[in-house]
């Protein structure tokens, strides 16, 4: 164990992390964005990105009908082409988990997991008791992935142990029933030093994945933020032998954006992270752009937007 569970050891560990130089991190991310991904590597990246999409709807206006449409899309993103892989998961609010699970099962999407956002998503402003009930509810409904938010207020006011305990508690609830993704909401943590610190805090507390954002706060998954988080999982692996996943979410809308994310993964955490088990992209509009670019690559021309399904 690199910490003994006490507040003192947690603080000591986090305070000894190397700082992030803002200018340097942004320059590195910008350089990696210039990588030119063409032909065969683009085809590979598009299919990999599709299989990494956590197809998401998190609206107050979500209905069972909307969820079912999304499930169909998740299982067969392109109804005209069976070689297109299914997406990584469906990501919905708690009360839609049961509907999503049974719909997926009934259309042959047994292998597509349902992720639920829990712990008073998106703000995280509720008592731990409520957050526990919220999580348990999602688990009972059949969620196999929990996307929890951290208490940013506690983190920013220095109550690190409180954040740690919350994550640990939710992880305990998840047990081996569900994967835990911990949303840092990097747009509210603001500095890269905070992003690095929160990443380690989440990993130490038991996160299976660290996730950038709720999608409700801008900026969300910027390239330098994802870079810093990928460095954190890479170094955590070197330290502990445990691989933690990364999930950027929010603002990734185009194939170009998604491919840039995969380049970041390849040249930071390494090729081992290029699997849906260790990298996901939280998105909704992205999937259709990936499908259109996939068609373009195969046919040589762009199809009208009506050739992909609207969900």
């Amino acid at each position, binding site marked *: 164990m690199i910490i003994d569970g006490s507040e003192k050891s947690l603080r000591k560990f986090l305070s000894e992390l*190397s*700082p*992030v*130089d803002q*200018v*340097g*991190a942004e*320059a*590195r991310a910008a350089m990696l964005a*210039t*990588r*030119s*991904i*063409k*032909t*065969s*590597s*683009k085809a*590979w*990246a598009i299919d*990999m990105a599709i299989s990494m999409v956590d197809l998401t709807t998190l609206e107050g206006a979500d209905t069972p009908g909307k969820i079912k449409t999304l499930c169909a899309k998740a299982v067969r993103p392109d109804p005209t082409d069976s070689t297109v892989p299914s997406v990584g998961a469906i990501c919905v609010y708690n009360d839609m988990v049961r509907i999503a699970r049974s719909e997926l099962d009934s259309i042959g999407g047994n292998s597509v997991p349902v992720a639920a956002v829990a712990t008073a998503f998106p703000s995280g402003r509720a008592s731990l008791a409520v957050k526990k009930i919220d999580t348990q509810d999602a688990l009972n409904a059949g969620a196999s992935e929990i996307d929890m938010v951290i208490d940013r207020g506690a983190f920013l006011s220095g109550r690190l142990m409180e954040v740690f305990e919350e994550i640990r508690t939710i992880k305990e609830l998840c047990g081996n029933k569900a994967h835990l993704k911990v949303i840092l909401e990097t747009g509210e943590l603001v500095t890269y030093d905070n992003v690095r610190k929160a990443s380690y805090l989440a990993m130490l507390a038991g996160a299976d994945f660290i996730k950038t954002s709720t999608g409700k706060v801008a900026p969300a998954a910027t390239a330098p933020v994802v870079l810093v988080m990928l*460095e954190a999982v890479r170094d955590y692996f070197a330290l502990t032998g445990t691989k933690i996943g990364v999930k950027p979410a929010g603002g990734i809308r185009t194939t170009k954006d998604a491919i840039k994310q*995969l380049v970041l993964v*390849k*040249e930071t955490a390494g*090729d*081992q992270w*290029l*699997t849906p088990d260790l990298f996901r992209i939280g998105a909704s509009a992205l999937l259709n752009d990936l499908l259109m670019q996939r068609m373009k690559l195969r046919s040589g021309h762009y199809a009208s937007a009506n050739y992909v399904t609207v969900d």
Partner: protein
Amino acid sequence: MSDFEYANAPESPAIANIASNYGLFIGGKFVQPKKGKSFNTINPATEEVLSKIGYADKSDIDAAVKSARSAYLKVWSKMPAKERGKYLYRIARIMQERAREFAVVETLDNGKPIRESRDTDVPLAAAHFFYHAGWADKLEFAGFGSKPKSLGVVGQVIPWNFPLLMLAWKIAPALAAGNTVVLKPAETTPLTALLFAEVCQQAGLPEGVVNIVTGDGVTGAALVNHPDINKIAFTGSTEVGKSIARAISGSKKTATLELGGKAANIVFDDAAIDEAVEGIVNGIFFNQGHVCCAGSRLILQENVAEEVLDKLKKRMSLIRVGDPMDKNTDLGAINSKEQLNKINEISNAGDKEGANRWSPELKLPSKGFWFPPTIFTGVTQSHRIAREEIFGPVLSVLTFRTPAEAIEKANNTMYGLSAGIWSDKGSKVLWAAKQLKAGVIWSNTFNKFDPASPFGGYKESGWGREGGRHGLSGYLTAEAKVNK
């Protein structure tokens, strides 16, 4: 699991449109050398001949200097300053318009990755013309006296590592200050200078204001020794720089010399390690390490040395070495066989002297001139690889225990061009910067250039500065006299 190998993403060589042969650019026209001699310029990544280049001898130099003198006396020195500025703006804009062409030609002729010529060399070269265009009509307010005057005809000799950028560093301030020039590009990289000559024609620059003479060291010496040159501006090796200093002593000529370096890149234990690793990589592997200000001596605090070296090696394994025209290439070809031999010779001396060589596993192309990204650990101050400029992708790693020791090691060199400091602590950075004897000091970054920022060295790294107001002063005299 992963098959995410980047497919080839080559830039098109057809954009370059390189002529099969080039004459000398004298008096606004391409002319054949008087003796009709020529030499080939090759692509160092493939060893293929790109073009046949005119070889200028003494008589050609004389013609070029005469043309420059005549343009100086009749046109350029009499032209209102704001008109000079307009020409410089026009040149800058044309360079931007033809940026892709310049980048491709540079990469083909030099061997540097297209990503660097496209994102660094060409934009910076255009920026130098824009910057100096602005100075042309403001010289009276630049602090050089109320009536600063141009010098006359300037002879300029530039190296092969940044052919177009070094041309811009030389020509832009010279013209802005009202001088005319005869420029000799390096023997192995004449093409972008000749393309620039076309730009001068396109911009309608008066004939003879810029003259480009191609050739080798003998050509350069003829230019330096020509009696009707008022100033020499040279970038290149310290050895040649010293010979220029000797050649012009006792003459009316002035000189700015931008020479070698063996920069210390100091990493303190409180640095942002990941970004420091990026900075180390950028410091020594940018442009194949063919950079006079390269961070070629890494001076690491001992208590973080292991961590930094571990991360550095992993990062070096990601450096993509190969076809410079591929947009994803990070490290291109060594510019010439001669340079490759020199890198090999000093590196082999490193082995013999007991340092430990390490390079990532990679396959180098069979044709062309290549050297893998390399670090030497266990280097001591007395090793040749710690003292001599290698001018290649070779990093010597030394360690230190206290800040004072770091400074002492950093300054223990005949050079003093640049240095880097990596620390998250502002007070330490400022303290170290004050102690370091180097003309350019980067803090938490490396190899950053800007036309407004003067560049130049201490000790055997050179005389004078280039860029900014300081650089401009090298092309002006406060006295109201006109040289004849």
